[in-house]
């Protein structure tokens, strides 16, 4: 509850979790060793899984196409290492389901040169060519959502993109990948912005950065190329400012319509790491093979920001950085929205922005859950201005339809602010996730019925 919240340069509500970024923010990005075996699930992004185009026993070079996109809402997959396809079969994913995937054995003594493809010229390529190039590079949102970027950049007919927002907020505690990328890959970023401006037709780009990364903002500010309509805006620190809708509000004081996309207010938001990756890959026509990941958390010995090949098994990563004896929970992503890992055999995917290891004493031993006392803390935290208290009570009694109908359940994007502040320790986000799943299922069924 902010007494003097004038909503200037920020959005309503939100929370201030401890940032916990000090240990890794100063560590430069380091290349991670190649694992002996890469396990590459095909369902790494939102949309249709890629279709494998290689066969078992085939030798591939780093950067070679392993799987092609199936339809528009899909991206291809490239070999993260040079090696031999050992097996094609089911591989475990973080969602707890099996996905078709590839086991790729790394050539131990390969130089791991990256295969080059058809470069895209930033000055002369058309918007369509750039979009195609982005899809061909297999780029998805690297902030965590893993939504195919070319789909997001495609401005629907009748709409116009006025502003391109580059999301350098990184509001999740612990994570410092974007921070490091901004400090180390400024030219890639500006190159990426150049592509993106062209692809979206936007007139200007704004890079939004939170005040705790002032050095990155300064660094980028010093390197803005001439003739590139980019400005940098430093925003007060608040979670979840990194969410698209929140960022749009913070920067432009516009609200994205409920269940709509930023393009409806003339904005496209792209993550800064994604931008850098576009700027890094497209001039060479390469596909995505690796990504920057923060490995942190109280249970990790060698914390840092690493460039890790996609498909590296989690077990290999943890063995390499060393973890505490008392390891208890491992998350992929940040502590607010990241997913707990049940199985160390899963591997790094394109959307993985961080790996956090918590030990027994760090995990808040799941406190006793009290009934909701309607204290309203969640209302003061919810950036979407929902009523998580009421939603939580309804979810407990499985009134899912009512939640969606009367209480805007589907607008919740599971940022976790409500659960973070809840003094009764009610697992609100989990309830909402469950409710959303059920509601989606029911809606799909209804649609089916109508179609039949």
């Amino acid at each position, binding site marked *: 509850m902010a007494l003097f919240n004038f909503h200037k340069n920020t959005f309503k509500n939100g929370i201030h979790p401890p940032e916990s970024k000090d240990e890794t923010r100063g560590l430069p990005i380091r290349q991670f060793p190649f694992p002996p075996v890469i396990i590459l699930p095909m369902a790494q992004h939102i949309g249709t899984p890629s279709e494998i185009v290689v066969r078992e026993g085939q030798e591939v070079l780093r950067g070679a196409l392993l799987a092609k996109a199936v339809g528009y809402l899909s991206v291809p997959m490239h070999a993260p290492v040079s090696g031999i396809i050992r097996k094609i079969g089911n591989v475990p994913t973080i969602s707890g389901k099996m996905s078709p995937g590839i086991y790729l054995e790394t050539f131990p003594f390969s130089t791991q040169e990256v295969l080059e493809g058809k470069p895209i010229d930033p000055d002369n390529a058309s918007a369509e060519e750039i979009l195609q190039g982005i899809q061909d590079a297999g780029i998805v949102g690297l902030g965590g959502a893993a939504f195919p970027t070319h789909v997001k950049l495609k401005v629907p007919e009748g709409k116009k993109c006025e502003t391109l927002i580059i999301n350098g907020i990184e509001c999740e505690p612990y994570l410092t990948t974007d921070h490091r990328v901004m400090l180390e890959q400024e030219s890639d970023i500006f190159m990426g912005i150049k592509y993106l401006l062209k692809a979206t037709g936007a007139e200007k780009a704004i890079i939004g950065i939170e005040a705790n990364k002032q050095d990155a903002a300064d660094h980028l500010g010093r390197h803005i190329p001439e003739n590139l309509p980019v400005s940098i805006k430093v925003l007060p620190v608040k979670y979840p400012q990194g969410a698209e809708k929140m960022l749009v509000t913070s920067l432009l004081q516009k609200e994205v319509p409920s269940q709509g996309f930023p393009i409806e207010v003339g904005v496209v938001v792209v993550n800064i790491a994604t931008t850098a990756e576009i700027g890094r890959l497209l001039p060479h026509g390469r596909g995505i093979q690796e990504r920057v990941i923060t490995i942190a958390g109280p249970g990790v010995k060698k914390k840092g920001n690493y460039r890790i090949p996609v498909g590296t098994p989690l077990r290999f990563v943890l063995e390499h950085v060393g973890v505490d004896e008392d390891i208890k929970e491992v998350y992929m992503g940040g502590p607010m929205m990241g997913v707990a890992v049940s199985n160390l055999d899963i591997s790094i995917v394109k959307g993985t922005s961080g790996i956090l290891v918590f030990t027994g004493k760090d995990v808040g031993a799941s406190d006793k859950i009290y*009934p909701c006392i309607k204290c309203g803390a969640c209302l003061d935290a919810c950036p979407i201005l929902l009523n998580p208290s009421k939603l939580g*009570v*309804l979810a*407990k*009694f499985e*009134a899912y339809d009512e939640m969606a109908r009367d209480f805007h359940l589907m607008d919740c994007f599971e940022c976790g602010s409500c659960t973070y502040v809840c003094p009764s320790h009610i697992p609100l986000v989990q309830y909402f996730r469950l409710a959303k799943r059920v509601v989606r299922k029911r809606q799909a069924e209804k649609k089916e019925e109508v179609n039949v």
Partner: protein
Amino acid sequence: MNTESLGTIFLNAALVNNFVLAYFLGICPFLGVSGAVKTASKMGMAVMFVMVISSMCAFGIHTFLAAINAPYLQLISYIVVIASTVQLVEMFIKKMSPSLFRSLGIFLPLITTNCAILGVALFQTNKGYGFIESVVYALGAGAGFTLALLLIAGLREQLNFADVPQISKGTALTLFIAGILSLCFMGFAGLGAQ
């Protein structure tokens, strides 16, 4: 002899001597229809409407019966008039809006046996109200009935999502709430006395 102002009559019927919470009139629909705010408000409106109409009729009947000196026919003529009014309203609603009819369901005929409506007719006679006073009294009683119904319905709707112990589920809980509300309404006692 009667010096009550119209405002006092209204407040008295609606708050101080609320028909449901102080006179226990109309408890059956009160228990039955107070589960959801939507139906409760509809029911409240229906009752208020019938109350005003039957109050007017009752005034006429009373005057007529006093003229022919047959007080013993009072009760039976009141109930006949109320019953026919309700029957008409019911058929009318059924014809005009079947969905409304379904949502009020079996409780529409229950208005016939709603003591609150007969209560208004009887009490206004006992108190010797004139025509305007009777109508105001009926309006107040109806408003009070609706108010009580709405309050309970709101609370019950909220309690649908509560860990109510098995033993106090159902009518008992509604009665407990009604009791507490009845205590609350005691706060209005004496309103307009000075």
